[in-house]
């Protein structure tokens, strides 16, 4: 890591690890979105179909 008047400049290693973390977080978030969607379907499922109209 180095600093100059432009601010902090990341080393290639820091950039690589940040990119790796970002991809991991994105993958986990997408996975959670899908999981919560499916859980919602399962939890609501029958209750929605059988509701009183």
């Amino acid at each position: 890591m180095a600093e100059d008047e432009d601010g902090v400049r990341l080393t290639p290693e820091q950039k690589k690890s940040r990119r790796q973390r970002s991809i991991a977080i994105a993958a986990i978030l997408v996975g959670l979105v899908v999981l919560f969607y499916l859980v919602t379907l399962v939890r609501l499922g029958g209750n929605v179909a059988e509701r009183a109209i």
Partner: protein
Amino acid sequence: MSDVTIDLSAGRRPQVSTAGAGDYFALLKPRVMSLVIFTALVGMVLAPGGVHPLIGFVGLLAIAVGAGASGALNMWYDADIDRVMARTSGRPIPAGRVAPAEALQFGLVLSVMSVGVLGVAVNWLAAALLAFTIFFYVAVYTMWLKRWTPQNIVIGGAAGAFPPVIGWAAVTGTISVESLALFAIIFFWTPPHFWALALLKADDYARAGVPMLPVVAGDGATRRHIVAYTALMLPVGALPFALGFASAGYLVISLAMGGWFLYRAVEVLRAPAGPEGRAASVKLFLYSIVYLFGLFAVLLADHVVALLTGAGA
């Protein structure tokens, strides 16, 4: 407008992490997590009634992540002693790959998320038990007992014994005597398991100032404690049969496996100090892992066989 200067001189530079996803995964103590997942799964399968497979999966995932979160918080708090112990010096924080604050935030976020997801998707009793387990492992065991008393792992073992109770509660919404029997199996297994390891790593623990039994009371007292606790553990392994949720086949296998555990413990007691004593401790430690996985696997198989043959609930 005020003049604000940020001191970027050496030692106060903004920290930019070089941690990879693998380092965060290591914070979750994946090997401990595998035991948590398996015992929680057995608790779920053995519980009467049923749960939708997806809800069961989410429940297991939340329990696993909650256990991992408590592992991360444990590593955050214990970074100072992990640094001086050979066994733990390669962990992400002492090795300098993850900053302590990152591990703390990671552990706290995962704790809240795992408890919340378990509560919303499964039920709030299971979530409350998971929250208590995380609290017990981090605050009671890690922050208090571990550095204070040689009984640390005896009492602290309760944290590792909760997963099957949580799994059971995830399906039934209750705590029952059967799930408490599963708790007792792990609770009584924990002391001989960890004392076998402590015999091997006593120098490490002494250097770190952790009052494990071999450090405080010596090898002889630890070996006697191992045999005594193993003798207590043996009948506890038979509780599922006594309570009527496992077959006579399970009883025979559990007694045979427990008997071998006791034989290994007596070998540790009888072995002379030095390489033979260390070899006996290594064998006991490795067998203890096989024992617990094996016993829960037999319980699982026994239950599945009972379901398939219509011999049990």
